[in-house]
């Protein structure tokens, strides 16, 4: 049963198993440094659909199906789907769920939705409310650009701190101890979840999301370590969602100011790693699909192979809306954290 530890961390005492995972990315992401770790690459980023939004929904649906298939299950074998994306009213997630016929909880916390889904999914499985929970999120460059920025073909320049929305999706299947399918690799489980506080340090610059989210990431990590009495060095890797290069540097600086000792080499960011400098993505990738695809490709792959044994996965989100930006409001940030461990840790 889930147990509260400290001020804001939940220990999942039954340790929900990570039974299967799957990731899908677009062509640009495939060409990046982590390219080979993704399961599936889109040949056509419209997926033969009429609109970008339907394409994103189809990508998410296919990713969920592939994830369930890897565990030898049908999508209906999940008791709940926890899903979200970046389009208004999380259209991609809902349109994906309408075809899957799995009970669904729609989530939105911008680019931190993957770790939010894992945290809630983990608690549902741990409490016995769900035998199996599938957590799946997506983002698509072409739906996010038109939602938050300018039309695709408009010719303008992006500042050096700007990030590139990843076209990608990731799905993770969490199972209770007795409900993991026999054929699934289940050496990895979820141990802790720390729900983030919404932090606003009065940044208004939409093209510097890393600066918006870094204070939230620093806050969540500090609280987590304090709650469970671990040091940052107890983790092989501390992985953030999409802070990008600017945000990662700011996170390290903020942690130093807070007196949280971390080894710089163990802190890395999905957004800063998914593209190479030659790919012209400026400060790195962003979008819920960024951390979701990297988790469900690179990170879980490494955990399974034993290249990392115990990691923090902390996706970060910038909580702006098209309305709030036009109204001149500052941008709040949030970061949810989950701990993934191999058995025997």
């Amino acid at each position, binding site marked *: 049963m889930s147990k509260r530890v400290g001020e804001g961390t939940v220990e999942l005492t039954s340790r929900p198993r990570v039974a299967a995972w799957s990731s899908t990315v677009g062509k640009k992401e495939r060409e990046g440094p982590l390219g080979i770790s993704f399961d599936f690459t889109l040949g056509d980023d419209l997926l033969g659909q*009429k*609109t970008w939004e339907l394409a994103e929904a189809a990508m998410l649906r296919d990713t969920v199906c592939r994830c369930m298939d890897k565990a030898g299950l049908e999508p209906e074998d999940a008791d709940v789907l926890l899903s979200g994306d970046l389009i208004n009213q999380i259209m991609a997630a809902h349109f994906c769920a309408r075809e899957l016929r799995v009970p669904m909880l729609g989530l939105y916390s911008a680019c931190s939705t993957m770790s939010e889904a894992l945290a809630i999914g983990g608690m549902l499985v741990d409490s016995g409310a769900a035998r199996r929970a599938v957590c799946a999120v997506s983002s698509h460059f072409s739906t996010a650009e*038109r939602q938050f920025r*300018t*039309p*695709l*073909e*408009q*010719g*303008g*320049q*992006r*500042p*050096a*701190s700007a990030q590139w929305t990843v076209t990608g999706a990731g799905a993770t299947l969490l199972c209770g101890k007795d409900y993991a399918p026999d054929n699934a690799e289940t050496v990895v489980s979820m141990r802790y979840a720390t729900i983030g506080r919404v932090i606003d*340090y*009065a*940044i208004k610059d939409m093209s*510097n999301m890393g*600066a918006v989210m870094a*204070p939230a990431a620093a806050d969540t990590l500090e609280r987590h370590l304090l709650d469970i009495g671990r040091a940052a060095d107890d983790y092989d890797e501390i992985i953030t969602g999409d802070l990008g290069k*600017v945000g990662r*540097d*700011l996170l390290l*600086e*903020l942690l130093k100011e807070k007196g949280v000792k971390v080894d710089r080499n163990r802190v890395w960011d999905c957004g800063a790693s998914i593209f190479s400098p030659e790919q012209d993505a400026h400060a790195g990738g962003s979008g819920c699909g960024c951390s979701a695809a990297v988790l469900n490709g690179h990170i879980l792959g490494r955990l399974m192979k034993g290249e990392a044994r115990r990691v923090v996965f902390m996706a970060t989100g910038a909580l702006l809306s098209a309305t709030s930006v036009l109204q001149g409001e500052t941008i709040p940030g949030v970061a949810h954290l989950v701990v993934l461990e191999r058995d025997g840790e």
Partner: protein
Amino acid sequence: MNGIKTKRQQAIEKHYKDLVGQFTPNHALAMNLVRAFLWGGAICTLGQCVSETGKTYLGLGQSETSAFTAIVMVFLGAFLTGLGQYDRIGKHAGAGSIVPITGFANSIVSAAMEFRREGLVLGVGARMFVIAGPVLVYGIGASVIVGVIAYLVGLF
């Protein structure tokens, strides 16, 4: 909600703002200026060539030449946008390709293309001027004001 921020919060925000400034890479200002100058100059030179062609070879009058040049340049901007090339130029040229009339065409056509799938009326029709709209409103507004002032000054 209308937060009266505590002194402490204000200090944190001020300090963080400095940090962000320190860690955010600068835009390559000098390089951007040079590029914008060269691209903007090239586009305007092309416009001048079109204008001269109209005047010399097609025998157009002064106002006809202006209209001819505008039509050709807007067509080029729109055409390159349709081919998906104008945004590539814009990446390098910055203001160099936004300020000339080709950039104006780009802002309208790109929005029209983007929202085509929401239909001809509420998509293309409503969204076409989403970027160019403010330019038109304040451009035309300013010209009316200047016109009125010029008229009044002319009375005396």
